[in-house]
């Protein structure tokens, strides 16, 4: 796997994270379901997961950058496992609407596990880490740059959304209204 191909795959990974963040926003706005504190923490881990690919695109693929994403994915898997366990009791309806039969935190757990596997697969290809004269770092193209700014933009939108939802106090365990929009 060449450095250029690895960079393209990292950009695709960023688009995948952007899709997850956008879907979460879609559910929040269209279904009027506000994310709970644990749900927000899982969203945060998806955003943290994106920092590794951003650095891979900027500085070229490095194993340390993949390690950042692996750490974020493991933390995300732990957080979503916690929420799965909170609703594992028979008869528990779960939190929020189910998508394709699975609640968001279950899908998040599956996504974090998939990220761990995919990151491990990426680390199998040593050629992307070689830095010879022919493989000098080239400026990222429009495809990769769009992915980076899309993820940064969605994360910044989450700053606004979370501020509206929680206000300047601790977030409610089961939020029903935006604290800053309450009359």
């Amino acid at each position, binding site marked *: 796997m060449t450095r250029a191909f690895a960079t393209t795959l990292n950009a695709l990974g960023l688009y995948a994270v952007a899709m997850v963040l956008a879907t979460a926003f879609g559910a929040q706005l269209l279904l009027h379901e506000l994310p709970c504190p644990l749900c927000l923490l899982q969203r945060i881990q998806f955003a*943290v997961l994106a920092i590794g690919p951003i650095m891979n695109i*900027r500085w070229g693929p490095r194993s340390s950058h993949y390690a950042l994403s692996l750490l974020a994915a493991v*933390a995300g898997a732990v957080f979503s496992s916690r929420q799965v366990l909170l609703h594992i009791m028979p008869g528990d309806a779960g939190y929020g609407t189910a998508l394709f039969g699975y609640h968001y935190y279950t899908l998040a757990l599956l996504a974090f596990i998939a990220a761990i596997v995919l990151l491990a697969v990426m680390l199998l290809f040593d050629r992307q880490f070689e830095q010879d004269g022919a493989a000098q770092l080239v400026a990222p193209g429009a495809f990769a740059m769009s992915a980076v700014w899309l993820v940064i933009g969605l994360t910044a939108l989450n*700053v606004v959304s979370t501020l509206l939802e929680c206000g300047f106090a601790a977030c409610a365990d089961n939020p029903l209204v935006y604290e800053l929009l309450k009359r």
Partner: protein
Amino acid sequence: MEFTALFLAITVVMIVAWRGPRPLALTLFAIVLLACIATYLHHATDTLKLSF
């Protein structure tokens, strides 16, 4: 409030990772990840109602 701060901090880390020096981005990443784990541990005090 802490979640707003975390999202804001991650946005800053992303911008530093994209535009700033690499060592600073790595340091900020470590701080944010530790803050996320601390926030999780702070909130993970509910009793797990396990079915077994």
